């Protein structure tokens, strides 16, 4: 095993999970301890990944596992945002009495599943990773089991997710049947000629992936699950599975199915346009902030997919940049949401923000920045995210996609403005608590400054991402 060091991050996290389980069983009241230990182990995990990230492409386990620039970058932002998700949610789960040993362990196992997904180079390895993360997520969604909405969201997510996994598996079997291999590179070699079997395979696999990324028309679970889950889990849902699924999207489209791009391009364009329009329009009527952000994430995934539809390195890089900026905006938004607390109760309706700016100028200003950034108004980070995507889209002369996408941003701007209106223009309500834990404050400060100051040095992410080339 001379390649042992490359898989060290995955091994480390698996060992940690098992160790924490043991600690949890044998030591009473160890929830806090495990939470903190998990956080530390995530930091160590991050350093381990960064440590191997300078290496070139490496195949492991009979070419079924791949470490390359794409997987390393995706794992870094995945684990990095995982750390921040843990930091921001720590107070929240204590307040609503969810501080149990299972919570951090489930998050860790879900992250492990995602890392396997990201690195997989084989249909079976990929499916294992996918199911590991999904199983953890089913439990997390319904973690607040005394709450009707939470139970509903867990069940809903489970049923729909199982259905989509079924479709995905069927797609995998078709692909295997017609290309005679489960290895991605081998599939690429074997599927040079058009045949209906592989085409059907692609369609089913894309359906399954579109479900994970909550793209229209497979988005139905997202609003309910976002609203019903505990907010810390919603934050997790909003960021980490999206990173993993987008990474797998890139991998599937540009490794095994790279030769079939005339088959899947139309599908991606359609999904992208439908998500951008539906996400923007449906969010207008929402009253609950978590539900609203669910629709908003649907439309954001539309933009990320628009980059993938271009079949160019520029497009892939723009999608990755998009998701990187998107995750920071979500972190900032949810940090603000965690601050709407009064007498051990969290508020999550849009009306609860009414007149927030009078008593909480800093919090309101952060929300203002985040919302304008989500709307894609320059000079904030969200604008650059969209700019890169449209740069790639227009390079391929896909003007229809670009114009629809930009018009959808105008519609989307309306509902972001509506929140800003409620914060800044409406009469004020009761004050919220102002003492928050340090992790939350730091997360909010870092993410807001990132969004605000992105324009000073916008090349940073671009330069890292430009190393990722698939074609």
């Amino acid at each position: 095993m001379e390649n042992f060091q490359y898989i060290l991050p995955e091994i480390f996290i698996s060992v940690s999970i098992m160790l924490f389980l043991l600690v949890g069983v044998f030591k009473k009241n160890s929830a806090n301890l495990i939470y903190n230990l998990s956080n530390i182990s995530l930091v160590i995990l991050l350093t381990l990944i960064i440590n191997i990230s300078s290496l070139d492409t490496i195949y492991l386990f009979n070419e079924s596992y791949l470490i390359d620039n794409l997987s390393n970058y995706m794992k870094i932002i995945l684990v990095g945002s995982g750390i921040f998700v843990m930091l921001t949610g720590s107070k929240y789960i204590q307040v609503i009495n969810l501080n149990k040993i299972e919570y951090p362990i489930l998050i860790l196992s879900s992250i492990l599943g995602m890392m396997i997904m990201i690195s997989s180079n084989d249909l079976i390895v990929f499916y294992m990773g996918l199911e590991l993360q999904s199983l953890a997520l089913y439990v997390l969604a319904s973690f607040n089991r005394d709450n009707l909405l939470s139970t509903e969201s867990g069940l809903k997510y489970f049923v729909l997710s199982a259905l989509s996994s079924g479709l995905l598996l069927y797609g995998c079997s078709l692909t295997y049947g017609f290309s005679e291999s489960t290895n991605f590179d081998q599939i690429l070699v074997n599927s040079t000629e058009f045949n209906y079997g592989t085409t059907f395979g692609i369609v089913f696999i894309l359906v399954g992936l579109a479900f994970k990324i909550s793209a229209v028309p497979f988005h139905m679970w997202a609003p309910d699950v976002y609203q019903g889950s505990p907010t810390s889990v919603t934050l997790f849902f909003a960021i980490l599975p999206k990173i993993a699924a987008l990474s797998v999207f890139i991998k599937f489209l540009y490794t095994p199915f790279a030769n079939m791009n005339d088959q899947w391009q139309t599908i991606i364009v359609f999904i992208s346009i439908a998500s951008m329009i539906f996400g923007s329009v449906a969010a207008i009527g929402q009253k609950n902030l978590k539900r609203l952000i669910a629709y908003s994430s649907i439309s954001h995934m539309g933009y990320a997919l628009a980059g993938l539809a271009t079949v160019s390195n520029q497009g892939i890089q723009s999608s990755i940049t998009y998701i990187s900026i998107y995750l920071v905006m979500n972190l900032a938004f949810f940090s603000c949401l965690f601050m709407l607390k009064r007498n051990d109760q969290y508020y999550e309706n849009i009306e609860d923000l009414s007149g927030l700016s009078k008593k909480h100028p800093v919090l309101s200003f952060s929300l203002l920045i985040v919302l304008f950034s989500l709307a894609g108004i320059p000079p904030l980070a969200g604008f650059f995210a969209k700019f890169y995507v449209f740069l790639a889209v227009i390079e391929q002369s896909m003007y229809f996609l670009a114009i629809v996408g930009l018009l959808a941003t105008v519609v989307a701007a309306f509902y972001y403005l509506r929140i800003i209106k409620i914060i800044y223009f409406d009469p004020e309500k009761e004050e919220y608590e102002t003492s928050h834990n340090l992790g939350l404050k730091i997360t909010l400060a870092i993410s807001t400054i990132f969004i605000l100051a992105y324009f000073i040095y916008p090349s940073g992410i671009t330069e890292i991402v430009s190393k990722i080339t698939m074609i």
Partner: protein
Amino acid sequence: MNFPILSSLILLPTIGALFILFTKSSSGKYQSSKYVALFISLANFLLSLYLWHVFDKNSVDFQFVENREWLSGFINYKVGIDGISILFVILTTFITPICIISVNATITNRLKDFLIAILIMETFMIGVFCSLDLVVFYLFFEAGLIPMFLIIGIWGGERRVYSAFKFFLYTLLGSVLMLVAIISIYWITGTTDVEKLYELGIRAEYQNLLWLAFFSSFAVKTPMWPVHTWLPDAHVEAPTVGSVLLAAILLKMAGYGFIRFSLGLFPIASENFTMLVYILSLIAIIYTSLVALMQEDMKKLIAYSSVAHMGFVTLGIFTMTQQGIEGSIFQMISHGLVSAALFLSVGVVYERHHTRLINKYGGLVSIMPRYAIVFMVFTLGALGLPGTTGFIGEFLILMGAFEKNILVAMIASLGVILGAAYMLWLFKRVVFGEMNNQELKGMKDLKTFEIITLSALVIPILFFGFYPEPLMNSIEASVENTLNMYNFDLINNLASKD
């Protein structure tokens, strides 16, 4: 010249805003913040005057150019000014201190936030006029929406929410198409650097669509008929200072954009669409003047008159003559001063009597003689009486128009008469006549700070009205250069067709 003078001009207000943000005031009234803001904006004004002083008026090149790598590899942060943009920069830095002085009259709550918004706004506005890269231009152009949205929405009147949304969404909708065009230009030519694009030129077959995309953005911002409807709403609901910023500077971004980008980058398309612009401008001039005649709200009347005046501007630009374009630039500067002054004048009586309805006023001359005098100067400036800046602009524009199309020029001249009609009628109803409303008797004449701000506006209006030479000198070479390039491109295109 190594010192980045333009960047300091752009950044100074933001630094001031940050300073105000991080200082706490013990009294809670934030008077000290106001002095900081005033100091910063005056310093910026002096800096821009210095810039005008050292600026070489005979050169047609862009000066004080700064070119820095920004978005790695393809887009640079590039700023620079020529004879046209320097005037708009000075207009911006001149109007901002006036706004800040006038603030305490109209803004009662959250003064600190308001000052920050104005200073940030100044940064974006100067940025628009300085940028020499399409993406940088777009960045500044769009970013201005954020502070303006907040200014209208937080400190506005009763229907502020509706107006703020309308303003934001109209402008955004117009602008996104421009973004598509900018990115397309990048892929067609390989650069978004304006200077390089002037040299390279854009192939004729792309120009029409690109021109239309830019036009959609500028037409909304100008505003041109029929997308002008956001302007009266925004003006009426915005606080006085917001209206001043909007009328004096924001509307000029589009006129500036027409000259710099539509004419400069797409000469062939500009030639093709001249008639469209003429017709829209004429409708703006005649129709909105008629609408202005019928207004009962003073601010709305001035807002509609702005649309009419900007109609003259677009007409002048698209005559493609030296007089027409110079006249348009002059008219924009003049309108910047006059409309700012008119909105401030309305603010003066609104603050005392809390209504903008014209029929509630009358006979103010007997109780507010000083006010009557300055208001008269501004009225005459707005209707273009010789001796005020308004005259020179309109006169040059009409000269240019007569050279190109007599019918268009004659219809536009009607607009001058209508302009005189609604402005004089407004003046008559507000200042002269009998004082029927007894409540008006208690109104006091101008306060010191109002005298300062209003006379600061009277002086340039009269001075440049009698002696326009300094402004004309500054723009002449650049306008000539723009026109030369324009004609050169057209001839080349014709030659290539033969």
